């Protein structure tokens, strides 16, 4: 593949990630898959790219001291464990020839569900803004079932006192999905931290990015050792395109309203999910495919 095309794709996704304030893995991996790069290589290489894009943001949040290190470390422990399980599953699926199918189905499910949730939420927010009704303020003191679990730990930075079970579990789920699908998972982590654990919003993004950075670093190493599908040259090209694109995106994002941005993002997410669904349903151009299993180039 042409290196400038890949650079351009990195830049375009970087622009969108800067615009919407997202990692962009869930857009970049599909884009690479649609352009003909094997899904296994796309996933593993994007995990590396996510390390770069989150590292650049973590620098900023670190400086603002907007990271709860204790919370991030416990999330990370779960994340590394989830990532390890992910790589094992990845290898098993690859050997039975169903990896591409599982990746596609997962993308259809996740992007479809999250896209439609975001779509409803943003349409409602836009309507509310137009009709002039003030949104109901959330009561921060409210408790849910999660706060009844044992093994409680105090997180001073987040002003929280919760069980480690949901924290480790959340980290593991995101680490697992990130490793199998080539996504950072910030778009799932941030809402989960806010709504389930009630982490203050000013701490959420920095903490989530910090955990994604190290979980994806672990995923890169696991992929390099297990599936051997990390391509450093491809990853570097995407990274450089990505970090440059993100700067332009961030500047443009400041001129758009939050609810409008979320509506655009929702449509984008649903579009990518739809594309995966169509590819699964359409009669394939070629019924046959081959995979090298042993020997030169395996």
């Amino acid at each position, binding site marked *: 593949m042409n290196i400038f095309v890949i650079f351009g794709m990195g830049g375009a996704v970087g622009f969108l990630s800067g615009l919407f304030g997202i990692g962009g893995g869930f857009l970049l991996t599909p884009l690479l898959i649609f352009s003909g790069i094997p899904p296994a290589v796309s996933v593993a290489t994007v995990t590396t790219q996510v390390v770069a894009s989150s590292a650049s943001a973590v620098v900023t949040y670190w400086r603002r001291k907007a990271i709860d290190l204790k919370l991030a470390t416990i999330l990370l422990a779960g994340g590394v464990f989830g990532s390890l399980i992910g790589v094992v599953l990845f290898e098993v699926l690859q050997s039975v020839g169903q990896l591409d199918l599982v990746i596609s189905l997962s993308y259809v499910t996740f992007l479809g569900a999250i896209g439609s949730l975001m779509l409803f939420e943003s349409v409602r927010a836009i309507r509310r803004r137009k009709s002039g009704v003030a949104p109901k303020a959330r009561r921060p003191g409210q408790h849910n079932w999660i706060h009844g679990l044992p093994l409680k730990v105090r997180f001073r930075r987040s002003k929280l006192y919760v069980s480690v079970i949901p924290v480790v579990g959340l980290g593991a789920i995101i680490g697992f999905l990130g490793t199998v699908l080539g996504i950072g998972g910030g778009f799932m982590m941030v809402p989960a931290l806010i709504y389930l654990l009630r982490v203050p919003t000013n701490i959420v993004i920095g903490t989530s990015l910090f955990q994604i950075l190290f979980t994806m670093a672990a995923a890169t190493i696991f*992929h*390099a050792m297990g599936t*051997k599908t990390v391509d450093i040259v491809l990853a570097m090209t995407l*990274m450089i395109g990505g970090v440059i694109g993100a*700067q332009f995106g961030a500047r443009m994002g400041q001129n758009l309203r939050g609810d409008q941005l979320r509506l655009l993002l929702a449509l984008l997410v649903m579009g990518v999910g739809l594309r995966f669904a169509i590819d699964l349903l359409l009669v394939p151009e*070629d019924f046959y495919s081959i995979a090298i299993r042993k020997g030169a180039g395996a």
Partner: protein
Amino acid sequence: MNGRRFLQPLLAAAVLFAACHASGAQNNNDLVTSLSSDVISIQSNFTGTEIVIFGQVQNIERQPNDPSSLDLAIVVEGPPQDITTRRKGRFLGVWVNREAERFQEVPSFYAVASNTRIGALADRDILDDLGIGLNHINLAVSGASNVPLADRDDFRKAFIRLREEAGLYSEQESSIRFLTNTMFRTNIPLPANIPVGEYKVKSFLFEKGDVISSTEETMAVAKIGFEQITFKLAQQYPLVYGFLAVGLAIFTGWLAGVIFRKD
């Protein structure tokens, strides 16, 4: 680079001439061959190349009025691989991989050149035995397979077709040219995606359907420079490769964070 590419065949021809003359009169029907290069180096800018195979048939009076008396076939074979071929089928409305057939120890690269139709060289048994021609490659399958017997041939055909589409298998009939009555040459293109390893170049001389002489040479395909370093790291030191990828990523990200610092 280009200069060398054109010079090498000439050099090979010159060496060949010298060799033939030095050895003097030999056994009848002797086949001598030489490659334009016995090492193919893959660098980052490698977009494929070709090798030229020269040869001489000694002490054979090639009859101008009976060109079919003498035939040649040259096979270039890459290191062996195990390759699984899968076929998609519909399952609950979704297209998924259903049947799979694993071909064992098949060549990762295969090119055959001949001076006439492959089928006209010799009987089917001989061609099968020597693996000359795309239809005669030995495609051994593993015992475990969920492919119905009636569909086995479809899998073989699909396998060959996909490898041809990737440029890794090819058949060039009538591509060997006789330069004189006894000297011949042919070009075998090597695509950008050739696997690395030890290649075999086998040449066969047929007379009226029988192999009367053959040669076998080896050729190495290897990555050099940056390509070799990353390939070797990824294959032999995957832990180092992984940490290198992470290190580069963190550095790139950190650098971008510093360069585009706003506050």
